[in-house]
């Protein structure tokens, strides 16, 4: 349990950092998601999610302001027990919320996991086409994730787990210069009865760090239900 405590302390201290930031290119946003997963067969599962993103800290002051709502769908096909390919479709509503462009996003994904006792490593490669009103962005991303239960080697109901991930992203488009992003995520989740998971975490993003770095801290909350 002391491990859980130390992680919570770590998360809380990261959150505390948010308050002392003073740069104008720093923003903090919140992202809340509700996801539904269901297995179609032993080889195929689908996922639907509703996700909203809102500003928490912007222009050197705290304020709450909605930014966008995403409707997300993913279909995942297992190649075998530790490899899968997924296809995703996402629509982002932004125009009517903060005036930004709406977006249709098409995703292709390959995922590979490796398990060592309680630790699980995950490699994910994604290719995305982000179709905006004016132009389309082609993005490739690679994520390395690690997750493990906080009690024992197997995740049982009513137990907590930790997820850590680092991700590198490259965005390309005809009308903008290539952009590199880097994201680091830590999350704590709980597996509750009835296949419900609650997750809470932080994600630190360095956006366009090859051009003009923007730093963003995301506070992530999500509920994932398997039916």
């Amino acid at each position, binding site marked *: 349990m002391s491990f859980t405590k130390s992680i919570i302390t770590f998360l809380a201290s990261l959150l505390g950092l948010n308050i002392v930031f003073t740069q104008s290119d720093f923003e903090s946003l919140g992202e809340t998601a509700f*996801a539904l*997963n269901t297995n179609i*067969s*032993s*080889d195929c599962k689908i*996922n639907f*999610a509703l996700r909203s993103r809102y500003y928490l800290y912007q222009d050197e002051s705290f304020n709450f302001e909605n930014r966008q709502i995403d409707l*997300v769908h*993913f279909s*995942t096909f*297992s190649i*075998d*027990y530790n490899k*899968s390919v*997924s296809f*995703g479709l996402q629509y982002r509503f932004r125009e009517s919320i903060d005036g930004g462009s709406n977006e249709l996003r098409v995703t292709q994904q390959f*995922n590979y*996991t490796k*398990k060592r006792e309680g630790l*699980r490593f*995950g490699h*994910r490669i994604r290719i995305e086409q982000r179709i905006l009103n004016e132009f389309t962005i082609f993005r490739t991303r690679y994520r390395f*994730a690690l*997750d493990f239960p906080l*009690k*024992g*080697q*197997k*995740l*049982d*109901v*009513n*137990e907590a*787990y930790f*997820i850590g*991930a680092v991700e590198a992203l490259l965005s390309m488009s005809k009308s903008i210069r290539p952009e590199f992003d880097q994201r680091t995520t830590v999350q704590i*989740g*709980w597996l*509750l*009865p009835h296949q419900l*998971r*609650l*997750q809470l975490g932080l994600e630190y993003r360095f956006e366009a760090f090859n051009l003009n770095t923007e730093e963003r801290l995301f506070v992530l909350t999500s509920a*994932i239900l*398997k039916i």
Partner: protein
Amino acid sequence: MKLKISLILLFIIQLSFSQTKNKKEERIPKDQFPDQALELINELPTNCKRIRFYKETDGDKKSYEVKFKYQKKNYSIEFSEDGILEDIEVLIKFKNLEKVIRANIKTHFKSYYKTYKLIKVQAQYLYQNDVDFNEFTKYVLNNTKELQPNFEIIAEVREVKKREIKEFTYNSKGEFIKDITLEPESYEHVLY
């Protein structure tokens, strides 16, 4: 409004934590391990590394397990609720099995499944009461040929339309004894 939501969330978490737990595996401190089992563990060679203690609860049934590394191999010893030794398992590589045993196991997989993929292979030494614990562990840890282990294999198998992860048990000759279907582990919380 936000406070209300957090309070509700907290309430849900509290509620679910207080529910009864059916199946559970957890790491426990050494002092919560049965005394009788600890006496045996204390007699293990001193160069056993990363000794960890686990407790498994399945309904009313409890069992204990100690895991450690000895000479670069991963061992686990299982004890009953009263601390009575049940078996010792050691992680092995399928390719290191004798050719005849390998052939028998492969034949079994090929005759029942369209495809198969081995995930984990363990040699399982069931404890016979007529042997002294020290003798028994010595045989197992030194991998002498005196004892004939069973082989426990976790594999992903595919029949025509169905894909499953199963745990198979074979005897020392590689002849099939039994299998059980395991629940596939979910990766859903990190997938997307």
